[in-house]
């Protein structure tokens, strides 16, 4: 059976350790994608007409002459939601490595750490600290729009 595992790359990858990542093809792909977009837009600039004027350049406001400026104050609720996001999104980033090793930790049962139970406890403490912030915000009425 072990002979099977030495064939393709995908099977090599399964031998435990993750293989080396390669970022060069990724950079390459992004460069080509940007190049594709730039060439397209350049082509459209060359092919397409360019007859502009004061009326055409005006900001669209349902056919009316624009009233006032766009850069105005916004409802503070939007910013509060963004703050809540900061609390949780950072948490999720830290949980990814934990999730990636959790299955392995459970599988390697050793007496000292209750067979992965310690991993769970660590995660619970981490999440509990963040949940305090969440329930504090809820109690303060952050999640009420009016």
């Amino acid at each position, binding site marked *: 059976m072990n002979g099977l595992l030495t064939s393709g790359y995908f099977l090599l990858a*399964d031998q435990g350790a993750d293989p080396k990542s390669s970022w060069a093809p990724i950079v390459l792909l992004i460069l080509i994608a940007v190049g594709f977009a730039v060439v397209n837009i350049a082509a459209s600039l060359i092919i397409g007409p360019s007859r502009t004027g004061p009326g055409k350049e005006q900001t669209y406001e349902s056919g009316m002459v624009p009233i006032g400026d766009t850069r105005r104050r916004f409802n503070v609720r939007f910013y509060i939601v963004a703050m809540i996001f900061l609390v949780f999104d950072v948490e999720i980033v830290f949980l990814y490595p934990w999730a990636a090793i959790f299955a392995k930790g459970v599988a390697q049962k050793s007496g000292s750490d209750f067979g992965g139970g310690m991993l769970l406890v660590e995660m619970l403490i981490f999440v509990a600290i963040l949940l305090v912030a969440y329930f504090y915000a809820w109690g303060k009425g952050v999640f009420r729009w009016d």
Partner: protein
Amino acid sequence: MPLATLISDVGAPSFMERVIFGHSPLPWQAALYDCVLVAAVFLPAVSLIAMFGIWWERKVAGHIQSRIGPNRVGPFGLLQSVADGLKLLLKEDLRPRDADPVLFRLAPYLAFTPAFAAFLVLPFAPDFTFEPRLNVGVFWVLAVLSVEVMGVILAGWASNNKWSVYGAMREACQMVSYEIPLGIAILVGVMAAGTLNMVKLGVLQSGGLHTWLIFRNPFTLLAFFVYFVASLASNKRAPFDLPESESELVAGFHTEYSGLRFSFFFFAEYAAMFVIGGIQTSLFLGGWNDPLGLIGYLHPRLAQAWAAHPSMTSGLWLFVLNCAAVGMFVLKCLSIVFVQMWLRWTLPRPRIDQVLYACIKVLLPLSCVLLLGAALWQLLVPEMALQPWAQYRPWNPGDWSAHGRLAAFVVQCVLAMVGAGAFMAVIGWVAYAWMTGRKIKQRLTDPAPIADGVPLAAVGA
């Protein structure tokens, strides 16, 4: 790091690289191969997927509203998107006087490039993945899709148009809220798999329907649906399409865009629909594997046969099997894309505060419970995390109980049966709707409608 190291430090070569260059390509050969692959396969494929998606959306919308949809350009109107693209290429590239000159031009690129870059790690087949070595695959897709949202926000803000700014604010808020349940739902899947590499995810689920991660335990099954709802919102698909809600904000964030720049936003949206379907497929729905596990059974054997004797015949068989795997993966992705379209033409749009608080008050606690439940489940019910078909036979309960995993086998089989039943019910529903819809359309479009076998004109109606 010098460029030469970056290029040569690539680990094992892929199947196609070995076919073309022999066993280890030189660095410049690998770089050339990547360039040709991107330019000749990836660009056309991604463009085709996006254009097909746009055509299909219009077709689905038409059929749901008892219309025909595009049917003039090409067979079944398939070339409609090509015609639209050509038309947009010939249009003027307008920029409003008050718009920010740099950011307004930058935004379409920011939306377009990440949608493209996300395709990089999608595991279309065991050997047909552009970058199989990326061991943070799932994370990479999430990261680049967040950059795409930046493009949308920037577009709205830089337009200096009131409609656009409203759209951008909504997008920013909605994205940051739904990113949280989205991330946690993915975490539940990652926990069960124990890897972030998308090719490894596919290999882990190669044993047939009951080894797919969605049926691993009840919590991954629920996480599948949480992920689906959150991915709709983070890709601004209806019913969460508030950033461009055309009935109130004209066109939302892209009100001021025209020509090709406008088309880039659409391109990005449809490409991203496929990508989020692709994550869902590879993380929950078994990736390229068929429900019986045939591809997962045959592939290691064919790969070994080819590695032992690299001949034309054995290589061809491996190639054909990979093509079948691509077909399976694309079929699953397109099914999810179809459900996204179906929902768009079925559900009404909620208010922005309802959208935000549904996420923070319902989805966020729910996903936290799922995370905890999945962790506990994995501790209490030992699962088979080995590679199916290599270390055990996934359809043989004896192999499972020999490892002491019979409970997991029973649970996974029951969940798989529930899932398969639900899937067949949905298929039946769609087929029924399609057939009755045809009858209705026939009645609507018939020049002389028939009532009880007698033409209405004859009755005098």
